[in-house]
């Protein structure tokens, strides 16, 4: 006949799963705190730039990213204008 040790088993299970549970709960909490920090840090340079009138790092990066897109748009507009002129000339000749 085994000795009665059910309470110890339950205690062991409780400790193990509470520890795992606390570790699991810490993930969304830490993520939330870090995201709040991230937002705060992203707004700090914007606010300081507004105050000083300088471009922020984020704005500069956005401008850099947007630069090739602007050039491509200009080129596309030029091509469209040229083709429109050509078609107009052709129709005039006819």
């Amino acid at each position: 006949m085994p000795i009665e040790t059910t309470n110890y088993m339950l205690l062991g299970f409780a400790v193990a799963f509470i520890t795992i549970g606390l570790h699991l709960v810490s993930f969304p909490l830490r993520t939330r705190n870090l995201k709040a920090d991230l937002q705060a840090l992203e707004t700090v340079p914007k606010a300081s730039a507004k105050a000083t009138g300088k471009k922020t790092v984020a704005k500069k990066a956005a401008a850099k990213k947007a630069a090739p897109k602007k050039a491509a748009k200009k080129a596309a507009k030029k091509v469209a204008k040229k083709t429109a002129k050509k078609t107009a000339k052709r129709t005039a000749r006819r």
Partner: protein
Amino acid sequence: MASTSLDRKPRALHVLDIVSALLMAATIYMVLFYAPTERVMGQVQRLFYLHVASAWVSMAVLILAAILGIVYLVRPQNKIDIWAVACIELGLVYAFICVTTGAIWARPAWNTWWTWDPRVVTFTILILVYLAYMLLRQGIEDPQRRARFGAIYAIMASVTVPLTYFSIRIWRTLHPVVIGSGDPSAQGTFDMTRPMLHTLLFSLLAFSIFGFTLLWHRVRLGWLADRVEQLRMKALGR
């Protein structure tokens, strides 16, 4: 790391979350209902399945952290440091579970919560060494210095893992030898019935997959923390 990869959880991680939850539920079922009750110790012996599985995962991830430490020293990359820290945090959590379940089992089995047994002492030293790692890291501000220090520390601290594993063969101990109990150098043997062995192997698998899932989540958290730190450094003009 781009914000999109941080915000969006990968589909594989979603699948792993579900798989590990199901495996853990199945483990609890097997431990409580499939495995037979031990003849002498009774119900408390069921803690053995959690105890061994958590010891296995903690030792595996701590060794992985040491390997990552070597990799970092050869090729210093921030992401390697993030993985190493995640490994050590997970190893600490599992080592804590291992030691506490062991102490709770020891109370009815050895009639004491704590004894100066070589396995118990070496495992506690392991926990303290890695706790010191987490605390010391907090004290270094420069990320590169911190990562280099962490890599060297993780390599040095990994000595405690084989020391803990082999302690029951090196010194006379009360602790039963589960893996390789047929070895003549083993002090105590541990015979298991087939359902007990199945439960042990299943819990090892479930804890390993669950451990990997937690590791992945922790690494994602590390990426986010790294991004915050980079922005903070930029804001401070360093």
